[in-house]
């Protein structure tokens, strides 16, 4: 069991950081508003992965004391980050929904999604 997961462990931080960077690139460079929102949600995904991997403990188990096989608390992974990520995911969903409704409004008003053409206010 240990060996099969060992190779995966190396990549967690790396993939989280790459996700953050890819999302940032999307949010900063893309022209389409929806792409920007997608970039934001990718940043969120990377952050959540980063947080969870910080809380991981090798050979740990989930912080649930299940009835049939009572597990000792010693080798449980960190429950706090999990609770934080739970909160963060729900909040991120709320923000995404609001952002997309704003995108719809902007499209109604301007008839385009390109950020270059929406500049009544100076960007």
């Amino acid at each position, binding site marked *: 069991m240990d060996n099969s997961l060992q190779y995966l462990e190396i990549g967690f931080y790396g993939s989280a950081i790459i996700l953050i960077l890819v999302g940032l690139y999307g949010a900063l460079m893309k022209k389409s508003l929806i792409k920007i929102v997608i970039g934001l949600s990718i940043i969120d995904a990377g952050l959540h992965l980063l947080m969870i991997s910080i809380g991981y403990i090798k050979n740990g188990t989930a912080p*649930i004391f299940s009835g049939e096989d009572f597990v000792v608390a010693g080798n449980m992974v960190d429950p706090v980050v999990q609770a934080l990520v739970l909160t963060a995911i729900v909040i991120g969903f709320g923000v995404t929904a609001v952002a997309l409704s704003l995108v719809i409004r902007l499209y109604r008003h301007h008839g385009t999604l390109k950020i270059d053409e929406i500049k009544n206010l100076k960007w």
Partner: protein
Amino acid sequence: MKKVIVLLLLAAFGYYLAATFFYIDFGISHFTNGVRDYYLAHTVNGLSVANTVTSIVVSFRGFDTLGEVTVLFLAASALGSILYKRRHKYEERVVLFPSSRIVQAGSKLLFPAIILLGVYVFIHGHLSPGGGFQGGTIIATGFLLMLLAYQDYHVSHNILSIVESMAGILFVTFGLLGFIGGGTFLENFLPVGELGDLFSGGVVPIIYILVGFKVGAELTGVIYTVLNEKDI
């Protein structure tokens, strides 16, 4: 040119992040006397809740959850206010034409099962993975399936908003009931019961069930609002 600059900046930022985080070793515990061990010890002894994540979300950091529920509530309100149109008819068709008979029959059969799954997830939030948010989301997704499959399926807006408000009010009221006997906000005032039983954990499962109802109603409302949004 701008692209190159941004890419370079991003690379620098990524290097910085990587340099910071790779020193935080993966897979070991980084601190000795954090709050984690207290939580793990007291979730069984103090609250008799099996799922530590649930006990943290609902009891130790219950205030966060209140805020989080509020965020969803605000998001639903914000959607309503941003997309508001004066001549808004709720009788408007949600989808253009009904889906095929197979999908209709299938979703009819699956709908009760999905709702039951959602209810199961939030009732057992303190025993197994899951809880109010997840259960509420599953319920909302079940409604989404029905809304997609049928052309004339309607969810009453008033009922949704009543369920949502009642769940929220009860949540805060349960919090305020914690003041009974000189306690604090959101304090557990019920007997905690035996670990692993369904009726255990004092107010934790009750609050999570309320959260489930609230999130389910809110997200269904969000889906409904968005589905009705159409250029005329």
